[in-house]
């Protein structure tokens, strides 16, 4: 019961803040709602027994990625609003198609039945960090090293893009 209440509150907050992100007039307000959204997602992860993911969601997403967004929003000081001359119907057809696809997805989720809740006493131990570490550094060794190359490339790319201004 408590779990259901917590889930519905979390879900409402996530979707509410998500809607605010894409509708807010000021970009800075959008960024703020995005942070709130990510914090609520972190709360959801805690409920799903993924505390390590919850903290890195806060640390990397809320505390890193969105800080970068905020810095860029502040750097990009706009003389005129970017939405001034846009044609809302421009991508209308594509939007309808996308929405239809999502509706099909919803229908599929409903049609294919409701999954059972997780069985208690499964293999997911409460000591989540060790388990993730074991999987990450043995089975997923190659993706892990590739991730570092990806980060290296991202770092070099961003520096090259900004370098001319240094």
């Amino acid at each position: 019961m408590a779990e259901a209440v917590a889930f519905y509150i979390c879900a409402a907050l996530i979707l509410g803040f998500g809607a605010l992100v894409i509708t807010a007039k000021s970009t800075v307000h959008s960024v703020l709602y995005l942070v709130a959204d990510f914090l609520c997602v972190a709360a959801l992860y805690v409920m799903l027994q993924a505390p390590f993911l919850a903290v890195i969601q806060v640390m990397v997403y809320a505390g890193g990625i969105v800080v970068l967004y905020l810095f860029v929003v502040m750097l990009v000081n706009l003389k005129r609003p970017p939405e001034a001359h846009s044609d809302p119907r421009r991508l209308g057809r594509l939007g309808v198609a996308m929405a239809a696809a999502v509706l099909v997805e919803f229908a599929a989720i409903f049609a294919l039945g409701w999954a059972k809740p997780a069985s208690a006493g499964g293999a997911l131990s409460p000591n989540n960090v060790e388990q993730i570490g074991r999987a990450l550094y043995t089975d997923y060794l190659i993706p892990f090293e590739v991730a570092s190359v990806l980060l290296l490339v991202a770092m070099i790319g961003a520096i090259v893009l900004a370098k001319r201004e240094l």
Partner: protein
Amino acid sequence: MVNAWVPILIFIAVGIAFGVVTLLFARLIVPQRYGRVKLEPYECGIEPTTDARDRYSIKYFLVAMLFLIFDVETIFLYPWAVIVDELAWFGFIEMVVFLFILVVGYFYAWREGALEWA
């Protein structure tokens, strides 16, 4: 397991409530005498002429970007640190390779002057 987080949730609620209630309470008792000049931003007595939200150095973007990359790197270090005894040499070499690749990027940033502020 999840129950261990309930006190934290309560703490967050209490913290926000403390902030909001204190501000509202202060709002009730403080004097409010507004004047146009009083509400101007402070610029050492000179009347502000331009908007404060102007363009500023791209250095701040670079610092935030480097922070983000290193932040992601440290989240890989923590699970490794927890089971470092178990992984032994294998894990150590893995992590040295990982750190080496990022240190290359670090020295690139250094060489390109992304770390200079003079």
